[in-house]
């Protein structure tokens, strides 16, 4: 057996079943794939397709005994991990095979310094202590591109940005020079610009160390740029596998074709300066005071939104883009008067910036919000009908129960759901359906202005495109004004006809969307576009690490 022909990892007929309340559900159904040495294999699929579970079962990290493997073999370097004992597995985990996770915010221990996090692994598997361990930690931090690693040794996770935390995670994963790195959506929680940097880093490390990689993602753009081979998973099965070019150029399976065709499409509404103004903001500022000293005097401000002007007309969409922390959501909340702000805000001809909560209430029916997370924004204890009717009970008290019910049914039909679903509970619906319910809750009040706070970012690709189409249809039908907040430039391009690019609370660039996309003027906008559309990290943009 020579290294060239035997794959490093060979998964044969792997199944994973979960037991709950006496029921058994098959999450992964007899999948097989190989990873050669120095090869990057991507597992692609939508949420719930079983890709993360498959990856976790390579290291047997599932919650046994509620999870079990009815069939399968996992051959790593000729050893079967499926039958290996717990001590054997421990010697493989973190040593030969390591894993990085999606959420850099929670996968580091918040109470340990960076040095301690990394040297723990070194001590565990290599017995490195003291000065030699520190030298290795510095080397690793340098490798993953953390600037001035000496100063960062004593830092705690909360002092680092998301990208830096993910770099530390990667440093921990590399500490013992693993043969295989399993990366479970390592860039999903990061901004596009940081995502591009992390991908570049992983690619560099792979070529320097000859590491193999199992890369789990739902983002086809990343797969195409990054992976050697790809396995497409849906409903626990691998439906198609092969070299990246083959799959992308000549997809065979219907699901792969659907996945490839699921980019948000379509054109935003045309710019029309004659439409009536719905929402106008002048010099909007949201400053959070920083207090210090015994008397808690305000010494400075965090300028979350700092002097933003905007005008939004009926039937138009204003896209607000920027990285996380740039103040886009804060701007939206200020406009809908859910947080206090300075500067004039006028909504359908009324200056609402000095209105109190109760003064705002009569206007709230025409000013609606759709939130990012369709799982968090619907109360789990109320039926869909109750959720949608809640606003009607506040704003249209004169309605009888039957009238309310028919309005709910109408709203559900508007968003393309069967009205009979109104007796069911949110947990019975998929993410896309839940987002439709959230949109129905806004639509039932017949609003003029809807703030859409990243309404598609928690959804799968195929569903994203559907929700974008739905939003555009609703806008055309009811002449709605949208404030569309997103970091996903592809979605923004399909919806917005005007654009504001924000950074650090300030507007970097604004103008008609078509112009900004075609010829971005600011360096920052250019860097953002390169990262989003080409997955390239551009240093010139001065993007924070």
């Amino acid at each position, binding site marked *: 057996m020579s290294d060239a022909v035997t794959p490093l990892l060979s998964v044969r007929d792997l199944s994973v079943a979960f037991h709950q309340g006496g029921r058994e559900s098959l999450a992964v159904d007899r999948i097989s794939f190989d990873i050669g040495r120095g090869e990057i294999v991507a597992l692609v699929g939508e949420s719930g397709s079983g890709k993360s579970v498959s990856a976790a079962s390579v290291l047997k990290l599932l919650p046994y005994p509620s999870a079990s493997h009815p069939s399968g073999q996992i051959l790593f370097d000729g050893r079967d991990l499926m039958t290996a004992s717990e001590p054997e597995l421990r010697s493989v985990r973190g040593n030969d095979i390591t894993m990085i996770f999606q959420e850099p915010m929670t996968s580091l221990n918040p109470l340990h310094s960076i040095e301690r996090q990394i040297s723990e692994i070194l001590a565990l598997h290599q017995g490195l202590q003291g000065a030699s361990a520190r030298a290795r930690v510095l080397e690793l931090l340098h490798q993953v591109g953390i600037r001035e690693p000496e100063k960062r040794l004593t830092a705690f996770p909360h002092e680092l940005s998301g990208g830096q935390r993910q770099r530390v995670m990667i440093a921990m994963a590399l500490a013992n020079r693993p043969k295989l790195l399993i990366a479970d959506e390592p860039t999903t929680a990061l901004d596009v610009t940081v995502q591009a940097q992390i991908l570049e880093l992983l690619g560099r490390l792979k070529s320097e160390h000859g590491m193999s990689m199992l890369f789990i993602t739902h983002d086809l753009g990343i797969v195409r740029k990054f992976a050697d081979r790809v396995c497409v998973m849906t409903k626990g099965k691998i439906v198609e596998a092969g070299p990246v070019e083959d799959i992308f150029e000549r997809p065979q399976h219907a699901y792969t074709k659907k996945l490839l065709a699921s980019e948000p499409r379509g054109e935003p509404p045309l710019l029309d300066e004659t439409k009536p103004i719905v929402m106008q903001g002048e010099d909007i500022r949201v400053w959070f005071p920083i207090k210090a000293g015994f008397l808690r005097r305000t010494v400075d401000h965090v300028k979350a939104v700092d002097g933003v002007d905007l005008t939004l007309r009926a039937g138009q969409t204003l896209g607000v883009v920027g990285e996380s922390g740039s103040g886009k959501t804060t701007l939206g909340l200020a406009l809908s008067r859910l947080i206090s702000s300075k500067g004039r805000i006028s909504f359908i001809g009324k200056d609402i910036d000095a209105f109190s909560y109760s003064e705002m209430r009569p206007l709230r029916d025409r000013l609606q919000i759709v939130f*990012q997370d369709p799982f968090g*924004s619907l*109360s789990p204890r109320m039926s869909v009908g109750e959720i949608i009717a809640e606003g009607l009970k506040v704003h249209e008290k004169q309605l009888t129960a039957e009238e309310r019910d028919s309005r709910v049914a109408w709203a559900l039909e508007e968003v393309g759901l069967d009205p009979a679903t109104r007796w069911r509970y949110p947990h019975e619906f998929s993410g896309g359906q839940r987002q439709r319910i959230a949109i129905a809750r806004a639509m039932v009040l017949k609003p003029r202005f809807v703030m859409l706070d990243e309404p598609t970012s928690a959804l799968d690709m195929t569903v994203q495109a559907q929700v974008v189409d739905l939003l555009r249809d609703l806008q055309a039908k009811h002449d709605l004004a949208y404030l569309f907040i997103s970091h996903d430039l592809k979605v923004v391009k399909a919806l917005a006809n005007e654009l504001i690019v924000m950074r650090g609370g300030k507007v970097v660039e604004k103008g008609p969307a078509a112009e900004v996309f075609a010829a971005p003027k600011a360096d920052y906008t250019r860097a953002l576009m390169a990262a989003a559309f080409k997955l390239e990290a551009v240093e010139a943009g001065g993007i924070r690490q």
Partner: protein
Amino acid sequence: MSLVETTTIIPPKKGWLNPTNRRRLENFKANRRGFWSFWIFMVLFVLSLFAEFIANDKPVIAFYKGEILFPVVVDYPEEKFGGFLAVTDYRSPFISDEINANGWMVWPPIRYSYRTVNSEVPHSAPTAPFWLMDKETRCAAYPLGAEDPNCVLGNMNWLGTDDQARDVMARMIYGFRISILFGLALTLASAAIGVTAGAVQGYFGGWTDLLMQRFIEIWSSMPVLYILLIIAAILPPGFFVLLGIMLLFSWVGFVGIVRAEFLRARNFEYVNAARALGVGNWTIMFRHLLPNAMVATLTFLPFILSGSITTLTSLDFLGFGMPPGSPSLGELIAQGKRNLQAPWLGLTAFFTMSIMLSLLIFVGEAVRDAFDPRKTFR
């Protein structure tokens, strides 16, 4: 539009439980021990609510001179039967002979109430349970000895008598009832106050929270027992006085969990969504936040209940509890301590307390399991 993710439509079932609660009920039932404890406890509790029909010194139904009487429910003056007391003593041979001669009467299984003194004890009280003595001994005090028509099972002391010749079984039944009722009343009242206070603190936050939190810290650092003793010395002790005094301090226990739950949940997206719809504060608190806090509260409830019962019992034991003469388990323990030669006193109190508290703890465990979203049963 073909974008609809098709779902099969199930016609609405008009159940009174939403799916989450249905799953919780399943989880509760899956804990067999807790489930059975709950039913045993409920049977005992409901039976004890009808203690007057089980252990009483009045007949349940009597038929006297063509008239059906309900002495348990209605107080008939003794002159009705030819006597002279204001309240009829049905146990006295004169009255019972009179009624039996002109009709009949049906006694409860135990012919003693908690305050009835058995005047036919074979020797000086406390006396042992009847099954520890032979028939001659236990009927010794009756005029006709073992042959006496009144020396029947209903007049026997199943668990003996206490040092004032009162039936221990009857006192135990009434004592159990008053303990549970006191515990329930205290728990529900403190839950109502504690949940409201915690909800207001957690939802409004800021200065409201700060001031109330400081107040609670000062309030809960008071030496509760001493305050109880002082108040008990001034006010006449009684069920509601005790309830009031203990309520002053027991509501604090709920504030912490409810406040934490409200603090956590007030920024949930569905709460923000409701705010964005213009829903009022109190509606949001009631409809969206309270259900979250109820999980923690309900989990806490059985444990608070057993705690309240223990507190009442210990106060009674120390003599600062219910007024003298009232049936109470604490007083029974105190008697057991004074009369070590009569172990049935202490043993009865011990077994009653430990079975009652164990049942409640088992129920509490099952409730906790039921509300644990990660709990799975195989």
